[in-house]
């Protein structure tokens, strides 16, 4: 007979690793509040939360992709495409303002997913091509980026600008999406399939997981969420700005990984990702609080922070395995 139970300590350190980002976040907030008077104000907190919400939406989609063992580099381009199409579509009403970007981004996600699932090409390369192609598409429909479509539809604009209790609607939308994503990931067969193919694709296939369908779904979701984030952002900015989203995919990946999701797939979660996004936002806010760092120093500090956070994460998880 084999009998192996988990010790309480083991469970505790597992929790520790999963919520490492959350704890670093709490630490930073405390330090920031002590160091700067204007840091722990409602206004500043709101600005961090509001501006993080768009990255969070993208990162939620990215979490699914990464847990499934893939990666999606096209989200930055999809974000800007979504914004431009939403602004363009808003001329024809609220419905078009949402349907157009979601439709287009969904199709891109579907294509990427199909190529990845059916040909076995590396997601990195397929979505890298997506990054290029989608940005090209965006440039084509905005006359090489020269045309900025403006959002004239008040209903759509309010989707991005309307406020409730000092926070704009996108924050609530993000929160709702995060909750849905959590349930999806932890409590549905689809979520289990995502973990399974990320953990061991071959085994998952042998266990009867519909690998191709799950992969396609994951990339469609990621693209839809990126498009939605773009559309909401366009509503917030009242225009389809064309110079957005460069390097956004790296931010999203960084947030997901800081949140404790393994890039190799098979493990991770939404809470960590949300914490990771907020962590990036808070770091930026702290840099702004200092108020006089040159741009170059800001980069050094961000890079150092990122390194610090991942090393801390890593050591925490090592400690877990040793105990």
């Amino acid at each position: 007979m084999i009998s192996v139970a988990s010790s309480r300590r083991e469970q505790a350190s597992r929790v520790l690793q999963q919520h490492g980002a959350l704890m670093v976040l709490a630490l930073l907030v405390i330090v920031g509040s002590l160091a700067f008077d204007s840091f722990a104000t409602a206004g500043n907190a709101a600005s961090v939360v509001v501006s993080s919400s768009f990255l969070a939406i993208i990162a939620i989609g990215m979490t699914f992709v990464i847990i499934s063992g893939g990666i999606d580099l096209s989200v930055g381009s999809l974000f800007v495409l979504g914004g431009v199409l939403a602004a363009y579509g808003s001329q024809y009403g609220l419905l078009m303002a949402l349907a157009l970007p979601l439709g287009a981004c969904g199709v891109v996600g579907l294509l990427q997913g199909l190529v990845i699932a059916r040909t076995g090409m590396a997601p990195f390369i397929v979505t890298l091509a997506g990054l290029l192609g989608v940005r090209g598409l965006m440039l084509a429909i905005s006359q090489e980026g020269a045309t900025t479509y403006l959002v004239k539809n008040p209903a759509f604009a309010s989707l991005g600008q309307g406020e409730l209790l000092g926070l704009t609607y996108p924050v609530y939308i993000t929160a709702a999406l995060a909750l849905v994503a959590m349930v999806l990931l932890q409590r549905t067969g689809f979520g289990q399939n995502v973990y399974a193919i990320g953990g061991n694709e071959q085994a998952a296939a042998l266990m009867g997981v519909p690998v191709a369908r799950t992969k396609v779904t994951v990339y469609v979701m990621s693209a839809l969420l990126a498009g939605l984030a773009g559309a909401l952002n366009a509503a917030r900015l009242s225009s389809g700005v064309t110079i957005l989203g460069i390097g956004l995919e790296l931010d999203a990946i960084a947030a997901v990984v800081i949140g404790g999701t393994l890039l190799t797939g098979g493990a991770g979660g939404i809470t960590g990702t949300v914490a990771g996004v907020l962590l990036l936002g808070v770091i930026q806010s702290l840099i702004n609080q200092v108020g006089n760092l040159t741009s170059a120093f800001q980069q050094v500090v961000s890079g150092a922070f990122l390194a610090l956070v991942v090393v801390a994460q890593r050591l925490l998880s090592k400690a877990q395995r040793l105990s």
Partner: protein
Amino acid sequence: MRRTDLEAVLEAKGISKRFPGVLALDGVHLALLPGEVHALVGENGAGKSTLIKVFTGVYHPDGGELRHLGAPAAFGTPLDAQRAGISTIYQEVNLVPMMSVARNLLLGREPRGRFGVIDATRMYAEAARILSGYGVETDVRRPLRTLGIGAQQMVALARAVAVDARVVIMDEPTSSLEPREVETLFGVIRRLRDEGIAVMYVSHRLDELYQVCDRVTVLRDGRVAHTGPLAGLDRLKLISLMLGRDLNEVKAGGLTRFSRDRHRAADGQPPAVEARGLTRRHVLDGIDVSVRPGEVVGLGGLLGAGRTETAKAIVGAMPLDGGQVLVAGLPLRGGSTTAAIRAGISLLPEDRKAEGIVPTLSVRENIALAALPSLARAGVVSDAKIDRMVEIFMRRLRIKAASPNQLVSELSGGNQQKVLLARWLAVRPKVLLLDEPTRGIDVGAKAEVQALIDELAAEGLGVLLISSDLEELVEGADRILVLREGAVVGELTGDQVTEERIMATIAEQSDDMVTIAERSDD
């Protein structure tokens, strides 16, 4: 009991399957009847796993027809096959290591609560209930990878059987199971048979076949060499069918693998390697082992007794809390595998797929891997030297490959194992630690490997042999250390080396359960 006039549940009619350079299956006919246990046997690379993968929709046949319940069937994916009631345990444990035990066990049929959402509480309870039926008591929330490989195999088994299956296919299910677990498994198989389910059973352990199987199909080089009832079939006849050799020839060779006489390990000689007080929390508890030149030392014990850990600790592949390893009387520095190999100790790991082969490299590169430093001058490798060495080992171990340049991942399991053995012999070790060296190896190859162990010991090599096959252990080892809960609980020498004594030593003072966890909850 068995009724041959029954309609086949699953039938292969002239199935062929080609891989680049190999015709793995060549017009195979096989009918699986309800309520029978059908043995599928054959040498390594005969095509057993390939046939199973064709049955389960992993591979698509190049020729022939698959019939399911009398109608032509084409399974596009394993999922299709599963839906048709065909459930499988594969040769290599194929589960998701990072997911929890419960989620692995119930993936795809988790109990649902409100809104169709998974009910976690019920899932864990159900998983625990199912597993305890297979003698596995564990926290089903922990990741599967933290379980020993045998326990993982039991989870895979439980998973396969728990579905509403009409056909259950098992590809070497016992290769990582303990005798007691094998009994549990046989109980399950007999129950399935009585329920009218067709069971296909692949194993290289002939004893097992005679214990549970009704009929047998022998594959040789991708073709069916024989099909018929097992009961009347003589053991030697079966072997001669598998090997494709004359019955008399096999008779002459006999079934003996190891030479009966003990090695003459010079008793006066100092140990080639000596481990003192190997300790690691929850795993190893002050283990002392020594191996003298020309001696084969066996490590016995139940699953999870710490045999693999002991071996890994000796080669420095596992961090220790205490203890040291001495080679020729001098302590091994650094605790790294590199140092151990340089000092002449090598380990053939237990988990071939995860720790053995490098799947992207050829047979040739895999064999040469560990010996590279000695095959190079100033960091530049000599291809001529490698070729010569690879050729020798491929011939000596009879490695079946299209060419030395074939990818090792394309070989059958047994041949992969031989490649690994070649890798370790190539570094000319003084002491060889073999962790389940004959797992998944056919009778022919097994005899070869065992003969090889003998031969090496005779040449003065020290061997530490870990095997769950008690017969192998008894026949091969001069001296056996029995481990339990990470500690040596007995040493058997000379005439004490018998299966009964091993079992007795394991059982002594031992309660029903080996609870590592209870120790860790101090």
